[in-house]
């Protein structure tokens, strides 16, 4: 397994090899991930599902470089990040990853524009092309008139769009969305999912989505179901009719 061809590794955005995560809670060791291996290729839109306690949050944290596996290897764009230091992980998060959270996680007393620019501040790269790209993103997500607003002046859907804008401001290789519609009503959820699908289809951003709603998972083209820290199933999206994502892609492109 360690002898995979280098080219193969390079093509994969994410490559997990027998990843384990064990938390020590006093005397008791809790196994959250029990040997997960998976690959995500460039441009994929993957939904990760599972009951609570199945390990999807832990998997998300490891994929998001917020945590390191206890055992096993994690390659992100061919770079082994599983034994990176905290600072190196921070840099990887800054350059290669974007996060969208269930509760938006925007800085409350900071304007929309500054929230979106936040990853660029820590990347020390607020150059002209970057600000241009930020403005492009703001236009794409229809946030022009809210640039000077504060997050609490916006609706939930608008806030989540700001969060998405922030997540893609640094042009990440992988976008991680953790229950992005969990706090939204169904209409706004559709709206947000449409934005994500659009980014996946038209911009080519690789998206990993954690959800426990089948309706939301249907937007993805591949669904991974976890159980007890292991992959239970890994199948193409089983939509009754045409996959919702494809339908969206066709209408927007």
């Amino acid at each position: 397994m360690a002898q995979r061809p280098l080219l193969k590794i390079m093509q994969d955005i994410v490559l997990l090899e027998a990843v384990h995560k064990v938390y020590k809670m006093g005397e008791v060791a809790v196994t959250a991930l029990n040997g997960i291996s998976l690959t995500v290729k460039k441009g994929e839109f993957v939904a990760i599902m599972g009951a609570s306690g199945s390990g999807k949050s832990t998997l998300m944290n490891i994929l998001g470089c917020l945590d390191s596996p206890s055992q096993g290897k994690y390659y992100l764009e061919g770079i082994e990040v599983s034994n990176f230091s905290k600072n190196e992980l921070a840099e990887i998060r800054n350059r290669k990853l974007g996060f969208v959270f269930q509760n938006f996680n925007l800085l409350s007393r900071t304007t929309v524009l500054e929230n979106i620019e936040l990853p660029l501040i820590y990347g020390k790269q607020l150059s002209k092309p970057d600000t241009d790209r930020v403005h492009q993103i703001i236009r794409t997500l229809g946030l022009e008139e809210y640039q000077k607003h504060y997050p609490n002046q916006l609706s939930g859907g608008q806030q989540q769009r700001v969060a998405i804008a922030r997540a893609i401001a640094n042009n990440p290789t992988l976008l991680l969305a953790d229950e992005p519609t969990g706090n939204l009503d169904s209409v706004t959820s559709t709206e947000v999912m449409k934005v994500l699908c659009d980014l996946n289809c038209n911009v080519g951003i690789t998206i990993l989505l954690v959800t426990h709603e089948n309706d939301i998972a249907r937007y993805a083209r591949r669904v991974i179901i976890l159980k007890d820290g292991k992959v239970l199933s890994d199948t193409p999206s089983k939509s009754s009719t045409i996959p919702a994502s494809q339908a969206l892609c066709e209408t927007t492109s």
Partner: protein
Amino acid sequence: MPTLFKIALRAIMRNKLRSSLTILGIVIGVGAVIAMVSIGQGAKSMVEKQLESIGTNVLLIIPVSTTHTVTSARGMTAGFATLTIEDAMAIEKECRAVNHVSASVRTTTQVVYGNQNWTTYVSGVGPDYQIIRNWPLESGRFINQRDVNIMAKVCVLGQTVVANLFGTLDPIDKWIRVKNVPFKVIGVMNTKGESPMGQDQDDVVLMPYTTVQRKIMGVTYLGIIFASSVSADTRFEAIEQITALLRQRHRLRPHEENDFTVISQVEFASTIMETSRTMTFLLGSIASVSLIVGGIGIMNIMLVSTTERTREIGIRMAVGAKEKDILFQFLTEATVLSSIGGLVGIIFGIVLSKLVSSFGGWPALLSPPAIAIAFLFSNMVGIFFGYYPARKASRLNPIVALRYE
């Protein structure tokens, strides 16, 4: 770095009341240090000026024992009458370490010129008094030996007396009256200023000591003998010689205490100066304690603030803030807080010094090094007390921080 500064400034502006209360400790600390040091410096410069005004190598011989405080009426009289003109002459003749001697006697009385009157000190002195006190004339001449010998009815005025009796008139060759006796003004002294004890040394009428003894007071004893040592180094030698001579002249037995005291004014002034220096240091130290208390206030608020903003820290970490970015952000915030406190404190300290000097009649001398040190110290307090909360914030686990409610 400018971005971090902006973030810190915004965080401070976000909660203005809390920020102003936080910096209050620093404001008071810096202000107190500056005010205390400038008051102390003012006192020191005042004493220094007075030290200059005393005159070189001045020794005072007073007819009171310092080891044995005279309390009884008999003791007072006995004490007062111990110094004589002969004592003064003997000191001049026999003490080799002494080069100038002036007998002196002093009383308080009213002096009159025309319809103006003024209550002042009438001080009887000898010709050497001017040299001993290192006190130049403004105009006219000083008392000479002949004036002393013939008990001349002449006088030399201090500036305060001139101002009160003559105003803008030239007092030379005018006649003033003391106890209905007319005295001719032969000279006017230059301004001398305050003594270390806070007396106005210019509020005086100088006359030959013989004149004051006979024509005004009707006594034969002396109130004080002024002497000067040959040099500053021979001061102690002079004191020993005078003491030995006077003990012999007063026929004191070895077990008897001195019925006089020889005081070196320089030592006296140095003591005051030492005291004021100690006071400055002490006041400054007490004031610095409040700076440290202010620093603890900053630490307290920064700890509350980092806890409150745990989720913000988590968000920043998620988008790529490194440990050092978070550390710098909170350290900058603490330092900016303490710097603002320091700047406001400088203004507060200057105002406080001015207030104390104008209401307390106490000179305040602003000391730029003290201001600089207080400001630097306030910054250091910010860094020192801001470091722990900042480090605590930077070590947060992003996963835990993001989930913090």
